[in-house]
């Protein structure tokens, strides 16, 4: 066992401080240490994207980052996007357009999609499929995920225009 490090993270706007071995993977920090269980463990080999979170503005697979690397970072998970009474437009759209079946991949899907729409607020179907290629779903066949993201994009763009 290596010596523990003093780690500081900001997760969903809340400061967290704890001691951890540097080898701890961020997904375990979130799920087991901080009880933030939205990000899921699917493959644990950087392929499936179920563990996707946003770290300092980038979509990252949290199974492929040591907690030591994230020291000082701002992390956003699905829990930081909306809550049951106030869903994020992407959460609302996935619900309305059947963008999920079993739901296991959904937190990672939606977290990744927030970043995709931030970078490209008006993506084509092809751009959505390319931009979501790091997230695997074994139920939906992706069609309704694409529809949900398109619907959320329209909704978010309309809300933005109304605000301007």
């Amino acid at each position, binding site marked *: *066992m*290596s*010596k523990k*490090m003093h780690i500081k993270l900001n997760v969903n706007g809340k400061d967290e401080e704890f001691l951890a*071995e*540097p*080898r701890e*993977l961020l997904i375990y920090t979130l799920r087991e240490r901080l009880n933030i269980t939205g990000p899921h463990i699917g493959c*644990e*080999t*950087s*392929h499936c*994207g179920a563990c*996707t979170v946003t770290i300092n503005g*980038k*979509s*990252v*697979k949290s*199974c*492929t*980052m*040591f907690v*030591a*690397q994230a*020291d000082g970072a701002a992390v956003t998970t699905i829990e930081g996007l909306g809550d049951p009474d106030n869903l994020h437009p992407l959460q609302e759209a996935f619900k309305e357009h059947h963008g999920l079946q079993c739901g296991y991949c959904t937190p990672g899907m939606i977290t*990744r999609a927030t970043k*995709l729409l931030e970078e490209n607020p008006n993506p084509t179907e092809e751009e959505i499929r*390319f*931009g*979501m*290629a*790091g997230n695997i779903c074994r139920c939906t066949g992706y069609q309704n995920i694409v529809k949900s993201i398109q619907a959320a994009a329209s909704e978010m763009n309309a809300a933005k225009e109304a605000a301007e």
Partner: protein
Amino acid sequence: MIPAAFEYYRPKDMAGVLAVLEEHGDDARVMAGGHSLIPMMKLRMADVPHLIDLQDVGGMSDIEVGTDMIRLGALVTQADIIDHAELSNAAPILREAALQIADPQVRYMGTVGGNVANGDPGNDMPGLTQCLNAIFTVVGPNGERDIPARAFYEAAYVTAREDEEVLTHVAIPMPNGGYAYEKQKRKIGDYATAAAAVQIVKDGGICVSASIAMTNLSDTPVYSEAAGEALLGTSVDAAALDASVAAMLGDIEPTEDNRGPVAFKNHVAGVILRRAILTAWSRA
């Protein structure tokens, strides 16, 4: 999946990095985005008792597009390459290749330096940098030295970089003419079954310069000088294409693995190179 324990270092400058490397020799490894090294550590195929995270070392995240040269810091990510308009304009093959590496999440983390320094035959940037005749700068206890990409790769994971050296920059002569990076892979995120980097200059309908390198078809990337020469002085007609593909097949040494037997890999390599040459020629 829990990797073996390690000591973690996050130095603020290169002197700090080199000090750890000098003290621990090949028990220490540097890491940029970690998307090659961390999976290997999780599988316990890589044992790294002393891990040096480069993220706080300054001066290695810039993209400089000069008149004759492009200079990329080792910590420039694939996403940085894709988003950099001036770079995409100057050397579009870099963006075309970066878009075919892994998936969006991995491209935010994966770096140029990690991709070329790791020495994994499956990585795309070694072949790409060989095609572009890039120069790698490494720094060690005796200062900096430059190593051509075409002389860097010795075997799988074995390169001309010494254990106590760190790759800091990649310099690329400004490319000319038409380009293509073509890659055949089984799925998003997979390494290439075969990939080809081609840069071609056309003058009066005749090929006057051609550079060709192949990925994941030997235990190193393969710069095929003969494949390029086969196109010189031709109008890149069917005979020239056949000659170039035949020359390339003489330079690669694929082995059977879960991407297929040798005959299949040779077949795919030929298809991909043909496609890359035709695309590059049409853009030249």
